């Protein structure tokens, strides 16, 4: 228990979650690795200071990702936004139309590239939600907490992403081969 001042347990936590935190943190702000590292530093040192008062979170990873996001947003606000959080750029981007996607897909060679293009075309908030659900394995109520919405809205967000992708992935790949192979 690191709450009792056990440094080894504390280091173990760090090693267990540093990769997830770095990955998620970097996806929240454009540029600056150093900024994300500072925020991770702050989350861990603050946890050490508060260790005696901290109750054991049921889901540690969720706790850490949420704390990291809070820290990042807090610092961005204080620094009068040297970087814009990606989620705010979001609102300005309209849904790209299918034709535009088609053109880009055309350029992508591998299936991997095609999938990357499709996902990059989703609105930022949808991307954040599917990263948290399908890579970080957080559940919908935890995602809702992080995105500050209710659970149903978090599901709706992912549902919209799924519907868009499903059209392109399942019928999809077929569609293309048909165009090329006749």
């Amino acid at each position: 228990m690191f709450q009792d001042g056990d440094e080894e347990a504390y280091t173990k936590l760090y090693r267990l979650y540093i990769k997830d935190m770095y990955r998620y943190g970097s996806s929240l702000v454009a540029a600056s690795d150093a900024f994300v590292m500072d925020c991770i530093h702050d989350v861990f040192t603050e946890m050490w200071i508060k260790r005696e008062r901290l109750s054991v979170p049921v889901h540690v990873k969720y706790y850490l990702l949420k704390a990291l996001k809070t820290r990042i947003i807090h610092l961005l606000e204080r620094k009068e936004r040297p970087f814009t959080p990606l989620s705010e750029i979001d609102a300005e981007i309209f849904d790209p139309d299918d034709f535009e996607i088609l053109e880009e897909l055309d350029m992508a060679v591998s299936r991997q590239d095609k999938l990357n293009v499709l996902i990059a075309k989703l609105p930022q908030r949808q991307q954040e939600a599917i990263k948290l659900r399908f890579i970080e394995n957080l559940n919908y109520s935890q995602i809702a907490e992080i995105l500050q919405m209710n659970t149903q809205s978090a599901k709706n967000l992912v549902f919209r992403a799924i519907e868009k992708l499903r059209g392109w992935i399942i019928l999809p790949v077929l569609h293309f081969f048909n165009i090329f192979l006749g």
Partner: protein
Amino acid sequence: MDHSLDNYVTADFLLSDEFVGHQLEPTPETAQLWEAWLAGNPPNLAEWNRAVYLLESIRQGLSEYAENIIPDEAIEALLVRIRETNHRQHAPEHRIGHSRWVAAAVFLLLSGLFAYWWLGRQGSQTYYATRVGEVHGEYTERANRSNAVETIVLPDSSIVTLAPGSRISFKPSFDAAAREVYLSGEADFKVTHDVRKPFLVYANEVVTRVLGTQFTVRAFDAEAKVLVNVSSGQVSVSKDNGMVEKGKSRSTSGLLLLPNQQAVFSRQAEEFSKSIVPEPQVIGTARQMPSFEYDAVPVNEVIRDLEEAYGIAILYNKEQLKNCELSASLKTETFEEKLRVICTTINADYQKLDGQVVIHGGECR
């Protein structure tokens, strides 16, 4: 399990924490629940398969995100920085220079120890020998030095068919928590069902975990790949992270295998890939074995027969093939031959992708 699942379509599965959680990090408990549901012949098996496929595709599309990995040096450097800050809190009278030296010394010592352990591990000792060496107490080893396969009955009456040049070790009576078996070489397992005790096979850095099913593991010391191939039931495979805690081997990036699917683990790249087995067999759980005799039957129905009989998802453009019909007897043909006959008839191609089949093209007037 919840029967409303039977009405689920693809998207519903992806909106279910139970489904996604199981696909990403299967545990014996979730495996038990889903295996039970799948064994009950759900009417929407094809939707389930599609959901698995869609989830994998989405994860593939997120690979840029998933593979944005922090460099090891940065991990160590940040840890040193964090500790420094903490120590300043701890003992303000300490000079910063001091704790930095201590941290550097500890780091050097640890990296030295790690290198020593790693080099030792890479030496002559095989994975099998290392793993068996860690077993506490008595264990039984069986080696097949003959030229023919050998059948072995395990303490729980599961049956192992051991290939020539292979060996297997296990405790004379399995542990309370899990049924653990160590394998070097190739073996086919027919595992008796016991939901309380998962059955685990450790073979060349790969852990295969099941509750009751039939599958083959091939892991010879001299081979660069490990192959796991499922005949029935559901199996999860993952990389062995070297945790020795009994029955709790941590499954980080597990892969879920259904009948007629196989996983290939590349020992060098430490990566799994999933595909269809070379010769798919009809699976036992198919509700009603189709006759495979067709006289002017819509191709959509023929494809559905194939999907159900072999448990393999087949993706195609339904709308485009709605006028296609097939007249043929496919009773004795293999899965591959059946597919070929269908595709030739409707003038289409097929491709095997991530353990599924995709049919492209095809047209009928």
